[in-house]
């Protein structure tokens, strides 16, 4: 027995040592001496082509290496945060969901954009996306792409698209009475999508969740009005039975299955519908997202990604240059057409090639010119987590009580006090 174990111990020790000394991490710039710019960005199918293009343009000045981040937004953010907290110098350009920009800026993880870089990033960029890249009056990122939801409706059921929520709910109820498909399909699960919906309602009602510099929870009359509409919508009997567990792709599928007359969703649903349900797609048109008061057009919440430069980058100047290349007009157009991500530079929408890929571009642009951002604060993840938990399920919102609760819990969330749900 003893001899047996002796051999075991030695063999194991050797194996462990071998494993530890085996493959070691290699890093740094490649042997030619061209600095590598590590670009951390979510998986996007054709982004490598943009990267290749920029590398060709850089002609040996730098070489961008695309480090793919996972699909889930939380996973992307955690991976970058972990490296930044460890002061990792191996990250140069960071792809940030627009709601993370203030957080990264406040934690002092990303560099301010100044001078010529700043002017180039701002040049022709739509105001809404640009605002999402600012913190305390300074620019911290360059908007790469934006996104905005539209109202999709069935022309065979709806002759005239509604312009307000009240109209839409009424039309749905009428259809229901006639025994036709009537549902208003959108995202209502307890997650970011519910916050996007609510934020649009508040902005369209002219309300505010936070004060202008994002330090206090104001939760004004418009915000309460948003609660009221959301509650009424959820309990009017016009939603899909799965409404409170529906995320983007669920909504698309519910609509594709022919269950709805209306859908509020991002533009990806259109190409997907043309592929998955072409007969239905032929009957579907789009319109501006409905507003709250007739005569006042909606203000719709934007999504999208910004590019920032890590504070720990070894080549910040080149990183700014690379970021600008990755999001310039030409590449934004390429990504818009090939990966379905709407541009942030207004002039790109006038390009003839865009008309074919984006038949709905006029409506997108109209909403973008008048867009709403989600609360701009470093504590946005806290605020959003609290809001989605309190608003879910929307049918059980009680205007005054929920408003009071949110006023308190959002203020705590801003100061990162207490516990997140």
């Amino acid at each position, binding site marked *: 027995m003893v001899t047996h174990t002796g051999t075991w*111990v030695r063999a194991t020790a050797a194996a462990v040592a071998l494993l530890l000394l085996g493959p070691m991490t290699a890093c740094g710039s490649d042997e030619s001496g061209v600095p590598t710019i590590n670009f951390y960005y979510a998986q996007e199918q054709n982004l490598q082509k943009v990267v290749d293009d920029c590398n060709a343009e850089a002609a040996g000045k730098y070489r961008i290496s695309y480090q793919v981040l996972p699909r889930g937004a*939380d996973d992307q953010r955690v991976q970058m945060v972990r490296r930044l907290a460890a002061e990792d110098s191996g990250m140069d350009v960071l792809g940030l969901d627009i709601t993370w920009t203030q957080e990264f800026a406040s*934690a002092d993880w990303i560099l301010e954009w100044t001078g010529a870089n700043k002017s180039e990033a701002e040049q022709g960029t739509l105001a809404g996306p640009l605002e999402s890249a600012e913190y305390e009056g300074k620019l911290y990122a360059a908007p790469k792409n934006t996104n905005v939801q539209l109202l999709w409706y069935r022309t065979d059921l709806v002759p005239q698209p509604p312009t307000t929520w009240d109209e839409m709910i009424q039309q749905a109820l009428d259809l229901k009475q006639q025994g036709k498909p009537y549902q208003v399909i959108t995202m209502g699960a*307890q997650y970011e999508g519910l916050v996007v919906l609510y934020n649009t309602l508040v902005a369209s009602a002219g309300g505010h969740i936070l004060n202008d510099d994002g330090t206090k929870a104001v939760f004004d009359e418009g915000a309460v009005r948003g609660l009221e509409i959301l509650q009424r919508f959820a309990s009017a009997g016009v939603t899909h039975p799965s409404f409170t567990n529906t995320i983007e792709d669920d909504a698309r599928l519910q609509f594709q299955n022919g269950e709805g007359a209306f859908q509020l969703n991002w533009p990806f649903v259109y190409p997907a519908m043309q592929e998955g349900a072409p007969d239905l797609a032929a009957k579907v048109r789009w319109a501006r997202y409905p507003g709250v008061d007739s005569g006042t057009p909606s203000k719709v919440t934007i999504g999208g990604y910004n590019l920032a430069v890590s504070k720990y980058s070894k080549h910040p100047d080149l990183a700014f240059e690379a970021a600008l290349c990755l999001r310039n007009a030409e590449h934004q157009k390429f990504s818009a057409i090939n990966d379905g991500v709407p541009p942030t530079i207004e002039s790109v929408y006038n390009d003839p090639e865009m008309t074919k890929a984006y038949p709905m571009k006029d409506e997108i642009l109209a909403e973008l010119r008048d867009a709403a951002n989600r609360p701009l604060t470093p504590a946005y993840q*806290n605020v959003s987590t609290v809001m989605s938990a309190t608003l879910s399920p929307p049918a059980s919102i009680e205007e005054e009580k929920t408003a009071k609760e949110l006023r308190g819990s959002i203020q705590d969330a801003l100061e990162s006090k*207490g516990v997140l749900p």
Partner: protein
Amino acid sequence: MTVRPSEGKRAEWRLGWLLCAPAAIVMVAVTAYPILYSVWLSMQRFDLKFPDEREFVGLSNYITVLSNEYWWTAFGVTMLITVVSVAVELVLGMGLAVVMHRTLVGRGLVRTSALIPYGIVTVVAAFSWRYAWTPGTGYLANLFTDGAPLTERASSLAIIILAEIWKTTPFMALLLLAGLALVPDDLLKAASMDGATAWQRFVKVTLPVMKPAILVALLFRTLDAFRVFDNIYVLTAGANETSSVSMLAYNNLLRGLNLGIGSTMSVLIFITVAIMAFIFVKLFGTAAPGSRDEGRR
């Protein structure tokens, strides 16, 4: 008091240390710092977003968490899921183990297929349940209800528990199967000749021999069940008060980047699980590994 141990005793000590050293060294080397660091973080106000506000706050994070409503709701949900799923799994797992052990036909097939659920990646399994229970996209929702079961609290919890049971009963069954394999046939035969019924044989002969295996199965399944995350995250994302303590810890730690509160929750989860483990070990007495009494037959 300090009786000098005999030479033989000391040789036994040395052998014991030598055999345990590699395992102990690996475990301590990998986890000592992370665990102590988490405990240390739990006593600080430390939010990665606001690095300047970092300070030592003693036990105040614990007071914050323990006086919070979300925490206790999630705690209740987690307890419910743990108790129900572990209890059901113990019974089902035992049945499954007996079938796997005793069956006269297709033993390899049964054993292998019974273990497959445990081998499926949890997140994928959870997604397939989500599809299955969503009206329009799944076969189960259309079959059993005309509503959307994942939008109601009771039915959501039932589905979460069902998914857990389906996924981890094989774990229980495998451990119990190995325990069954240790029951000496001659003992069973002797009992049978003494006129014991099948049930009596099971209770009087099989169960006592299996005690250590049952303890291990219960212990590890419980501490795993109490940390339930994936199924809830995918199935309901915590809506309708179906959040578990692990989801709270995740939200505070990784979404909120609040390392202080998040670590506090981890420590509290740890303490809860430790108490449950302690109760199990006490209940099983000498069947516990490493207990002083060498109750071997």
